[in-house]
C-alpha cells in the first residue's frame, strides 16, 4: 500500500492524544517536578514558606555521602538478584512440568496463580505471621516433623530477615514467571523435539540444545519484568519488616520513603528517588536496543 494520507495520519494522532495526555499528566509532570525538587533545598518549612533555594547537585551529593543510602542500594541488589534467580528457576521448572498434559493440570495451574493475584500487603502480612518465631506456622511445622533445629526467629534476626523477605517475594513471583514461560514453551514447534528424539537426543540434551536457546527471548522478557517489579518493591518489605531489624531489609524504596515521609527532606528524597529509577531505566534501554537488533536480524533468528 502507499503512504497514508495526511488526513489519516491526523486521525492517527488524534487517537494517540488521550494516551499522550495521560502520560504527560501522570508520568512526565511528576517526573519533571521530581527533578525540580531534587535540585532544591526543600524541607517542610521551606516548602510552605516558599523559601526553597536552588542548590544544584547538593542533594545528590548528600545522598551519595550517606552510608545508609549505599547500604540500601546493596540490599536492593541482593533482594533483586536473589528473588530473580530463585523465582525464574522455580518458575521454569514448574513451566516444564505444566507443559506436559496430566490430570488436574489446569486446576493446579490456576491455583498457583492465586499467589500472584494476592495484593503484596496481604501476602506480606501472611508471611510475617507464618515466619513469626513463637506463633508462626513454619516453626510449628519444623517442630512437628522433628526438625526443630530449623526453627528460627527468621524476621527478627538481622542475618536471616533478608532471606525471609526474599522467600516471600519468590513465592509471589513464581506463578507469574511460570505463566509467561509456559506460554513461551508452547510456541516451540513440537516437531523439533520429535525430530531430535528420533536422532537419539536425550531429554537433557533436548532441553539444553532446543528448549533453552529457543526460550531465550521469552526468558529475557520475564527477567526484565521481574527486575522492574522487584527493584522497586516496597509494600511487601514494608509490611513484613518495616526495613528492620536494625536496617537489615531497608531496601532502596524504603530508604526513599523514609527520607521523604519520616524526615521530610524533600530535596534529598527526590534525588534518591531518581537514583532508584536508574537501574530499571538502564535495563529498559538495554532491552529496547536488543529488541531492535533482533528485529533487524535475519528472519528465523528469534521466536
Amino acid at each position, binding site marked *: 500500500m502507499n503512504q497514508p494520507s495526511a488526513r489519516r495520519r491526523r486521525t492517527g494522532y488524534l487517537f494517540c492524544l488521550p494516551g499522550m495526555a495521560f502520560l*504527560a499528566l501522570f508520568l512526565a509532570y511528576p517526573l519533571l517536578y521530581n527533578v*525540580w525538587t531534587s535540585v532544591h533545598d526543600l524541607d517542610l518549612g521551606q516548602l510552605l*514558606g516558599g523559601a526553597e533555594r536552588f542548590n544544584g547537585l547538593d542533594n545528590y551529593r548528600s545522598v551519595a555521602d550517606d552510608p545508609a543510602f549505599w547500604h540500601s542500594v546493596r540490599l536492593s541488589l541482593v533482594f533483586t538478584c536473589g528473588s530473580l534467580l530463585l523465582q525464574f528457576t522455580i518458575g521454569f521448572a514448574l513451566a516444564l512440568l505444566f507443559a506436559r498434559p496430566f490430570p488436574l493440570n489446569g486446576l493446579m495451574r490456576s491455583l498457583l496463580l492465586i499467589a500472584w493475584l494476592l495484593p503484596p500487603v496481604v501476602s506480606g502480612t501472611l508471611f510475617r505471621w507464618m515466619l513469626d518465631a*513463637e506463633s508462626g506456622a513454619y516453626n510449628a511445622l519444623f517442630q512437628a516433623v522433628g526438625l526443630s533445629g530449623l526453627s528460627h*526467629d527468621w524476621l*527478627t534476626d*538481622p542475618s536471616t530477615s533478608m532471606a525471609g523477605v526474599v522467600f516471600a517475594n519468590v513465592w509471589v513471583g513464581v506463578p507469574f514467571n511460570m505463566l509467561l514461560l509456559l506460554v513461551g514453551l508452547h510456541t516451540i514447534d513440537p516437531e523439533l523435539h520429535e525430530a531430535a528424539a528420533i536422532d537419539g537426543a536425550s531429554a537433557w540434551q533436548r532441553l539444553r540444545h532446543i528448549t533453552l536457546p529457543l526460550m531465550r527471548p521469552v526468558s529475557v522478557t520475564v527477567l526484565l519484568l521481574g527486575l522492574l517489579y522487584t527493584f522497586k518493591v516496597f509494600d511487601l518489605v514494608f509490611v513484613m519488616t*518495616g526495613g528492620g531489624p536494625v536496617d537489615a531489609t531497608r531496601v532502596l524504596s524504603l530508604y526513599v520513603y523514609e527520607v521523604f515521609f519520616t524526615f*521530610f527532606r524533600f530535596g534529598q528524597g527526590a534525588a534518591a528517588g531518581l537514583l532508584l529509577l536508574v537501574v530499571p531505566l538502564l535495563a529498559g534501554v538495554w532491552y529496547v536496543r536488543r529488541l531492535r537488533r533482533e528485529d533487524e536480524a535475519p528472519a528465523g533468528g528469534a521466536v
Partner: protein
Amino acid sequence: MSYPLDRRSFLRASGATAAAAALGAGAALTSCSSDTSGPVTLKWWDYFTLDNFQPGMNRLIKDIEAGVPDVRIERRTFPFAELERQITLGAISGDLPDLAIVDNVAMNTLGSSRLLADLTARVKKWGQADQYYKGPWEGCQVGGKTLGIPNNSNCLALYCNTRMLKAADVEPPTTWDELASAAQKLTSGDRYGLALSAINTEEGVFQFLPFLWQAGGDLDTFSTYGATALTFLDELIAKGSLSEQCVGWTQQDVNTRFLNQRAALQINGPWQIPTLKKADFDWNVVALPRDKEAATCLGGENWVAMANSKHVDKVWEVLEYTQRPSVLVPYLVAFGELPARKDLADRGSWASDPALRLFLSQLPLARPRQYGAHYAEASQAVAEAEQAVLTGSASPSAAARTAAGKIDKALGEQ
C-alpha cells in the same frame, strides 16, 4: 509545551488541584482574618479510627455544635501513622483542615513547619495555662509560642500479673536491680519475665527513652547513658528474662503477650486498661522502676489549629469550649484517657480507678519528646541502636557511640 522551571508554574499547570494548592500556600503567608457571617464549617482531622472511640467523639462534636454558636464540624479520620503525613501532603496540595488532634510527638515536625497557628495571645487572654501538667503543656510550646492545647495525656508504667508475682514470691520492682531480679525469677518455660516494645519505630523509642532518662542521661549524652540503658536491656535478654522477639513487637503485641500470660511484667500505657479489665486474671500497675532518677515518657494528643485556616478565631472558640470540665471529663472518660489538667485530677473515672490513678500520679514525671524539627532522625538512630544491641549485632557501647553521632548531627541542625 515548555514550562519555566519554577514550582508555582508547575503547580498551576496541573489544573484545579494545583490552583487550590497555590491558594493554600498563599493563604499560609497572609495572616488570617475571619469572616464570621453565618454558620462556619470547620474541617477537623484526627486518627481515632477504632470503633470504641466513635460514640465519645460523636458526642463531643454534637456538644460543640450545640454549645459554640454558628459552628459545624466536618470530621475526617486517618490511620494513626497517616495523619502527620496527610497534613504534610495537605500543605503541598492545599487541602488542610482548620483544626486537628495530633500525636504530641508530631509537634517536633509540625511545630517548626509554619503550619500551625500561633495561639499565644489567645492563651494568654484565656489565662488557664497553669491548670495543665508541666510536661503536656510544655509539649505545646515551640520556639516561645503556644502552638497547641493538650487534648489528653498518657505515660508508661509497669503492669504486673499479681498471681505470678505472688507465686514466685516477688514484690513489684521499684529499681533496675529489682526489675532485673524479678524478671529473672518470673521467667519460666515459654513465659518471659518482662515484655516491652523495641520495634524500630517511634513506638519502640517511646518505650526506650524512659530507660535513658532513668540512667540520668538524655539524647545529648547518648554515648554514655545510652550505653548504660542498652547494657541493662542487653543483660535482660542474655539472661532470657526478655524475649529477643521484642525488636518486632508493637505495644499492642506486648499487651497480647501479657494477656496470654506469656509475660509476667509488661511496660505499657493506660490505653490498655479497657482490654485488660476483661482479662481473667488479676493485675496491677506500678511506676516504672527507677535507676538514678524516676522517669517516664509522655504520650497523648494535642489540639492544633492550622495557620492557613480562615477561621482560627472560631477554632479557638471550639478549643476553649472543649476544655471546660463539663465537656472534657465525659469525653476523656469515654476514651479511657487521662486529663492533661491538674484541676480534673479528682474527677472522672481516674479519681476512683486505682490503675488510672497510678498513671495520673506519674504524669508530673512524664517528659515530652521535644527535641525540634529533626527529632525523627534522632529517634531512628535510637531505635537502630536498640535493635542492634538486642539482636546481638553490636555491643551497647559501640551502638551508643554510633547513635550518638547521628543524634548530635540531627539535633545540631536546628
